[in-house]
């Protein structure tokens, strides 16, 4: 090798890089939702089992391959077998799609962060209507937080067909997000290695602060009790197990090539088995930790809404029956209601339709995930806390750190193969390649800042990575075990690290994990086929809520293209290599 490969300054930087990449937004906004949907405390059972059976083995495999081959994903898989160059290319394509849409989340986090320095917080009050007699109509029908998200941040159009124009405010934030990412990856491991100290550690500081604050909030215990009461019957639900497997799979970020890229900058003697266990356990504990915080905040929000609902009912009854102000309280509400029903039956029946049945359970059951959780539900809870500006700033700063940490991994997955390739790196220096990748991603990412951008974001979020990754990791596992040879790989690792390979890893790699991935793949494929036409949730401004609509044909075509462009790389790569070899053999045969 002509030039020494850049290395991590300390193994700690490598561990932090992996943690910073794996611990991302999914730990904060997807795991609590799954926990809530699939039985609370009892969801931990499938989750931990899947971690041991699927997460750790596959993570170890990727790290070991990267450390052994000391190249990015394309080079690494080409070394294992020339027919597998397509796998590396598929990883790069998927990472490219991911980085395109993922940084938009960072842009939104920036937007909310910059707006947190105002009093009152802009999403806590509705703007006034034209003649200042009331609030804006859309805001009244929805809530102020929903209005701020759908109208002020996204300026969303009613359907995906109406693209609208690029919104300059989110576009500016997107450009800033890409500049920040460029700054962090500019010098390769030298700069990334220092940045990951912050992106890995700061979110934990904020989560600790939020844990203390969350547990002391009024009504937090309601949320925690709701989450942790196990609903054991959910264990029999196959969806719980499938979602646990999927969550572990995507939470660790397998198959993108980022882990291979990070591990390729390791010393060959690095003990990656120890690091695998550390990273995967920290990732899962962070998910559980984040869900404790999330549920205490849920509990606070639900209790607050429940009490407001009760107060509204009290006000309604007080005004309709001209009762003394302060006479009706939460404790005597029921008996007074029955008294009024008997004493003034006609008037009571008039008022009755407007009396809402307030229930704490129904408030807790509103399960939300994704951007809805982060930008609508959390902001609603934050606006009711004291010193809400401080909590808001902390929260969005944490989201930003989590997002940037994951972006570092995504861009590393794209850049490492490019800088490894001698053709490209001889023409352009490292800084220029990084700059070009960031520029291209930013330019395409402007699509997501259009009025219909959020709908395209959902398409990318749901379909760009899921099926392709399952296929990629399946091919990876099968390739290492059966194409390269498990024994050969085992002796490679022993020579490299000095430790023998535990039988557990061999059993998992050879049998259990590929079977699991195949079953996940079959499940998702059949799910997509059975559901038929895909639908999406569109925001209806006149009603102030989401409505379901069908995707137009061209959107379906683009979705199909997304999935095909990455999965087709694998067979096309193998085919290409086969043809080239065949031609070469034909040439040498004719020459000889």
């Amino acid at each position: 090798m002509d030039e020494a490969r850049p290395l991590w300054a300390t193994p700690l930087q490598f561990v932090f890089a992996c943690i910073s990449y794996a611990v991302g937004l999914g730990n904060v906004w997807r795991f609590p939702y799954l926990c809530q949907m699939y039985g609370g405390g009892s969801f931990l059972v499938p989750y931990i089992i899947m971690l041991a059976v699927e997460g750790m083995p596959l993570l170890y495999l990727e790290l070991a391959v990267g450390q052994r081959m000391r190249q990015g994903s394309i080079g690494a898989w080409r070394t294992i077998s020339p027919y597998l160059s397509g796998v590396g290319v598929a990883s790069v394509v998927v990472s490219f799609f991911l980085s395109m849409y993922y940084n938009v989340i960072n842009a939104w986090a920036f937007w909310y962060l910059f707006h947190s320095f105002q009093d009152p917080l802009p999403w806590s009050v509705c703007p006034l209507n034209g003649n200042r007699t009331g609030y804006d109509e859309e805001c009244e029908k929805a809530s102020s937080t929903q209005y701020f998200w759908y109208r002020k941040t996204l300026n969303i159009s009613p359907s995906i067909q109406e693209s609208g124009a690029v919104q300059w405010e989110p576009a500016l934030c997107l450009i800033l997000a890409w500049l920040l990412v460029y700054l962090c990856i500019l010098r390769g491991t030298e700069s990334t290695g220092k940045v990951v100290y912050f992106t890995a550690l700061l979110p934990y500081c904020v989560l600790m602060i939020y844990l203390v604050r969350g547990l002391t909030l009024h009504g937090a215990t309601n949320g925690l009790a709701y989450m942790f009461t196990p609903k054991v019957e959910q264990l029999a639900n196959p969806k719980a197990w499938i979602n646990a497997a999927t969550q572990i799979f995507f939470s660790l970020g397998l198959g993108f090539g980022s882990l291979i890229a990070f591990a390729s900058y390791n010393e060959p003697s690095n003990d990656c088995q120890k690091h695998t266990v550390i990273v995967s356990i920290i990732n899962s504990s962070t998910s559980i930790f984040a869900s404790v915080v999330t549920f205490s905040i849920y509990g606070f929000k639900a209790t607050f809404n429940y009490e407001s609902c009760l107060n509204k009912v009290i006000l309604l009854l007080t005004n309709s029956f001209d009762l003394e102000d302060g006479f009706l309280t939460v404790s005597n509400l029921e008996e007074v209601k029955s008294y009024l029903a008997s004493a003034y039956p006609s008037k009571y029946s008039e008022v009755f339709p407007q009396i809402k049945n307030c229930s704490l359970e129904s408030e807790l059951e509103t399960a939300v995930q994704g951007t809805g959780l982060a930008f609508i539900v959390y902001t609603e809870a934050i606006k009711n806390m004291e010193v809400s500006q401080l909590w808001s700033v902390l929260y969005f700063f944490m989201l930003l750190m989590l997002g940037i940490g994951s972006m570092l991994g995504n861009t590393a997955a794209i850049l490492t193969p490019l800088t490894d390739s001698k053709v490209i790196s001889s023409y352009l220096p490292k800084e220029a390649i990084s700059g070009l990748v960031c520029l291209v991603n930013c330019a395409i990412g402007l699509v997501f800042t259009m009025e219909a951008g959020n709908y395209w974001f959902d398409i990318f979020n749901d379909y760009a990575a899921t099926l392709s990754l399952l296929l990629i990791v399946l091919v990876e596992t099968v390739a290492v075990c059966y194409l390269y040879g498990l024994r050969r790989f085992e002796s490679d690792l022993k020579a490299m690290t000095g430790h023998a390979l535990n039988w557990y890893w061999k059993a998992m790699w050879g049998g259990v994990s590929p079977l699991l991935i195949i079953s996940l793949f079959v499940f998702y494929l059949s799910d997509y086929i059975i559901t038929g036409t895909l639908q999406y949730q569109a925001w209806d401004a006149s009603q102030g809520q989401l409505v379901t609509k069908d995707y137009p044909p061209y959107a379906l075509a683009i979705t199909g293209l997304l999935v095909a462009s990455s999965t087709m790389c694998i067979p096309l790569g193998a085919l290409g290599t086969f043809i080239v070899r065949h031609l070469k053999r034909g040439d040498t045969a004719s020459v000889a």
Partner: protein
Amino acid sequence: MLWLLFVLVTAIHADLCQPDAENAFKVRLSLRTALGDKAYAWDTNEEYLFKAMVAFSMRRVPNREATEISHVLLCNVTQRVSFWFVVTDPSRNHTLPAVEVQSAIRMNRNRINNAFFLNDQTLEFLRIPSTLAPPTDPSVPIWIIIFGVVFCIVIVATMLLILSGIRQRRRENKGPSEMEDTEDKWENTITIENGIPCDPLDMKGGHVNDAFVTEDERLTPL
């Protein structure tokens, strides 16, 4: 006779002020919600103050400067506390149009609220919408200022890193030629010990030994 007249007058007044009467408005106060323990009791003195405030508001309307407290009629006071009121003209036979009363109250809403230590939500005039305070709109939105600061910091840091990288690369390119300079400098510094210059190995007369070829040429590239 006088008693009959009194009854007649109150009867007429009672006709003018009734729930849902023409030009009548309902008022609702939530004293305990607003003031908690410091809530005062609603008695006839407070009603008098209310009539005075309404009369005051009407007097500020052009053509209605002659409105007196006795022209404001209250009725149907409940425990809530809520009641209806009308404003009559000087002849006490007709009530003033609702539109005039509405605009007068809207103009002076703040004064009326303050007189009772209440606000728009706790002293409600049904059917008289209150003018909501517009949110303070600074000339430059705050978020742009913070965005500008962060943007400039990131740009400056990026420029610094790029420039230092370019400088480092230029230094590496000049590396081989610089190496010879340092060797010359080393030759020129004569080591002195006890005031007597030592004569180190005679480097100036060094020749390249052709038998010993440099590594670059001999080893084939990997």
